């Protein structure tokens, strides 16, 4: 058991050190290492964990690491997997940020970052478009989305409050008005 925990930690350390782009990019690496190679969990279990991790608040990469770790080694497994996936980021960024202020004060680096900021705007906008495609284009989503955009732009209402209101409206709409989940298995 102890060896398995160490192995889990080491595997997640590698995953943390070699994935770019966070939770979604990590899925294929976790699949290759933990499902296909080490066979610690099977494919169905893994897909179920991904579904839950996406449907829960929190950082998706951390959610899946905690979940996979718990299945393999209980509490200590979840702790070691989470630490493993976090430590490489922490170390790399801590080192970079020590030099960053100096680095950004260099004239030509600052010029480069003027261009990079334009690229970041494009990347985030693209993420919005991709997320938009993942929700169905119906009146509820359009009205709630438009209202949230206007409220976020023109008022000081907190982001958290807006998300919570969305959650309440979603329950009212899906559960009580369109009864979308009738006939499904519910807990």
């Amino acid at each position, binding site marked *: 058991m102890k060896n398995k925990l160490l192995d889990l930690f080491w595997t997640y350390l590698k995953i*943390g050190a070699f994935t*770019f782009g*966070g*939770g979604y990019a*990590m899925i294929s690496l976790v699949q290759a290492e933990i499902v296909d190679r080490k066979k610690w969990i099977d494919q169905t279990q893994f897909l179920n964990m991904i579904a*839950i991790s996406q*449907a*829960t*608040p*929190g*950082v*998706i*990469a951390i959610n899946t690491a*905690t979940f996979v770790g*718990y*299945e393999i080694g209980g509490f200590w497994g979840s702790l070691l997997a*989470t630490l493993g996936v*976090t430590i490489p*980021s922490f170390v*790399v*960024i*801590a080192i970079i940020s020590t030099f*960053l202020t100096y680095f*950004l004060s260099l*004239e030509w680096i*600052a*010029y*480069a*970052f*003027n*261009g*990079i900021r*334009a*690229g*970041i*705007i*494009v*990347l985030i906008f693209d*993420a*919005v478009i991709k*997320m*938009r495609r*993942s929700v169905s284009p119906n009146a*509820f989503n*359009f009205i*709630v989305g438009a*209202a*949230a*955009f206007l409220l976020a732009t023109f008022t000081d209402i907190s*982001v*958290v409050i*807006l998300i919570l209101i*969305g*959650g309440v409206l979603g*329950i009212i709409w*899906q559960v009580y008005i369109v009864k979308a*989940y009738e006939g499904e*298995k*519910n*807990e």
Partner: protein
Amino acid sequence: MSELLTLFFVYFEIGLFTIGGGYAMIPLIQQEIVNHYHWITLQEFTDFIAIAESTPGPFAVNTATFVGMRVGGLLGAFFAVLGCILPSFIIILIIAKWLKNFQDNKFVKGALYGMMPVVIALILNAVFILFLNNVMNTTLSDFSLAGFDWKALVCCGIAAFIYYKFKIHPILLIVICAGLGLIFYGLPTLF
């Protein structure tokens, strides 16, 4: 010490309300870290996003480490990252132990259904604010066209064209945009 605790709780809130992937943090960070506590500027945050995208590891942990380092050095980074990952850790432990059918519950499904359009709208709003800040050099509450930077707009246009036309990796897009920045902002200073 109190600032470290504040950092921890602010990041705990950010981690808790990150729904649907790392970019969902951006509006929360803009609201709390940039506008409320003034720990970093919007421009610094945009630069952090660029570096977080081009370094390994979860985007959320990368940006938390950056902000934490800026506010309180290594200890600050530790508290920010701890705050950011703790909600995930606690919620998933509870689900893994007792609530395996969590995502089949109709109230959970309904709440997520309603949160998604809000999260998407909030990220769109965040990118709108970044656009105003970087291209127009203005804010909505104090709007003016005086700071309009046509070079930034051209860089955005070229970046969007290359990204959609050639479907390149985000890191390659960042490298290309660095080149655009050097050409549009650096080159003219030589003449």
